[in-house]
């Protein structure tokens, strides 16, 4: 919602993406509650503050603008599939995340102009741990990504579960170019 509002108010989708992540960062931080029931105050040792990763995508009829924090990812699913994000992680350990213990963090932004129709897939590591390669994701999802994105997301989730997925899985598929509002 924050992203929609920001994108509606700012023609620069990169800036809108960053603003939305700032709102998300604040919201996640606000979830933290100290042992006394008072709002959590970030300290050096910040055990117990809820934290999360973040990924967003704005798809226009020209460009794809993604924003992310941590190891949630965005992929291009098309004739030549590719990863659109670079994990904020080193050796499997997150170097950026959203949470009260992280301070105010905003998303890193990438832009991409597709060379033809396809879809943008945003997902958490619950999916990509089992299907990391863009080509694998495209094989599963490309055929229905444009016509039935929800079915494509469900199919991807099923693949991850079949592969033994135990982590929570978040998957969103957005067709490109986007359908004009009816």
């Amino acid at each position, binding site marked *: 919602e924050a992203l929609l509002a920001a994108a509606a108010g700012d023609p620069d989708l990169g800036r809108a*993406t960053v603003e939305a992540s700032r709102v998300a960062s604040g919201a996640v931080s606000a979830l933290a509650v100290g042992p006394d029931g008072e709002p959590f105050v970030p300290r050096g040792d910040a055990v117990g503050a809820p934290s999360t990763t973040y990924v967003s995508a704005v798809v226009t009829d020209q*460009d794809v603008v993604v924003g992310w924090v941590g190891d949630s990812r965005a992929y291009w699913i098309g004739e*030549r599939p590719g990863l659109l994000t*670079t994990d904020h992680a080193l050796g499997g350990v997150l170097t950026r995340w959203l949470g009260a213990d992280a301070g105010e963090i*905003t998303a*890193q932004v990438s*832009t991409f102009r597709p060379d033809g129709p396809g879809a943008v897939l945003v997902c958490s590591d619950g999916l990509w741990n089992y299907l990391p390669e863009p080509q694998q994701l495209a094989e599963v999802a490309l055929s229905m990504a444009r016509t039935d994105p929800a079915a494509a997301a469900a199919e991807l989730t099923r693949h991850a579960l079949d592969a033994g997925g135990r982590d929570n899985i978040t998957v969103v598929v957005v067709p490109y170019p986007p359908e004009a509002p009816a």
Partner: protein
Amino acid sequence: MTFSVDVFQNEYLPEQGREVNAIVTVTGSGTATPAAPASDRRVEVIIVDTSGSMNYPPTKLAAAKQATAVAIDTLRDDVLFAVVAGSHVAHQIYPAAGVVPATPSSRAQAKAALALMRGDGGTAIGQWLLHAQRLVAGYDDAIRHAILLTDGNNQHETAEELDRVLTATRGAFTVDCRGVGTDWQVAELRRVATALLGTVDIVAEPAGLADDFRAMTAASMDKTLADVALRLWTPQGATVRFVKQVAPDILDLTSRRVESGPRTGDYPTGSWGGESRDYHVCVEVPPAAVGDRMLAGRVSMVLPDGTALGQGMVLAVWTDDEGLSTRINKEVAHYTGQGELAEAIQEGLAARKSGDVERATAKLGRAVALANRLGNEDTAKLLAKVVDVEDPVRGTVRLRAAVTGVDEMTLDTRSTKTARVRRPTTPDGEG
């Protein structure tokens, strides 16, 4: 800032002669004047290849980061800037979005953010340029410049895709391109630099990047006027054969003409500081009677608001005195030779690559002779690393058996770099 425009030509044509050649030297000097106020805003975008190959060896990416830090430190205060990492997509590194003014704190933040640069993924230069175009959008009155560094082939997009982007980004900003190592394509990067009115060069060793980035950024900071065009008026019935920048390097502008009035066209020249460039203008005029004089062209430099600065006249005079009409203008001959030299090098290297020893020897021999005659000492030195020179005057050479990729690519990349004509006296033309 003012422009002076000097024309060098032999204006005499034989009876029925049609082709008029002139070298036009344009010199920008001084600081901002009311007529030509300096752009008070600059946007500088630093684009660094972070494809997976930048990790091999790891010192390459490290050197690129260090060079980027040096470029950031070279930015003058208040210059709007951004750092972009390019792979098959464009990752914004700093600031989070858009551009920010250079201040001590933003420079420090930007350098800290370079840690986000990771070597991963492919190479799609078009995506990087589109990202830079978005960053400079809305700063039309600023001097807009990008530095682009790559180490490899543009393998994640087709040549057609890149061409489409180059057409779409024309005039959006100027870009100086650098290739590090020897795995990139000279022709490809030259296409980018030509379309976006910048330079292309090789940085053979990653260790050389920092100095190069410092020099490029400093040169960009010295530009004071953006979007200057060369305006050429030609008379009724005349045809413009070509308009080429010929110094400091060769850049054919013929196809870049934008009609700006009756028989008048503008050719983009990018940003200017205190500097001098030479242009070769070739106009075909309808023949006139012996003794007739004609204004064959009028050259001036124009700003985006239409202000014209400086003016030079290209003349045609028909004569039956062969002593006059066959006289060769020194400047025209020099730069015609520079063009032949660049062609001989590029064709010779291409022949060498395809195994055509005979043709390669002939072309590179011709290049050696031309470089020797025209005084291109730097080019002669580069040629001597690719061929053994027996006679530099006649251009007798033998191909060297073992040539490093670096030497070959350096020669190719710098083939379009020209030597200025030796001009001991004041400019007064020859005709």
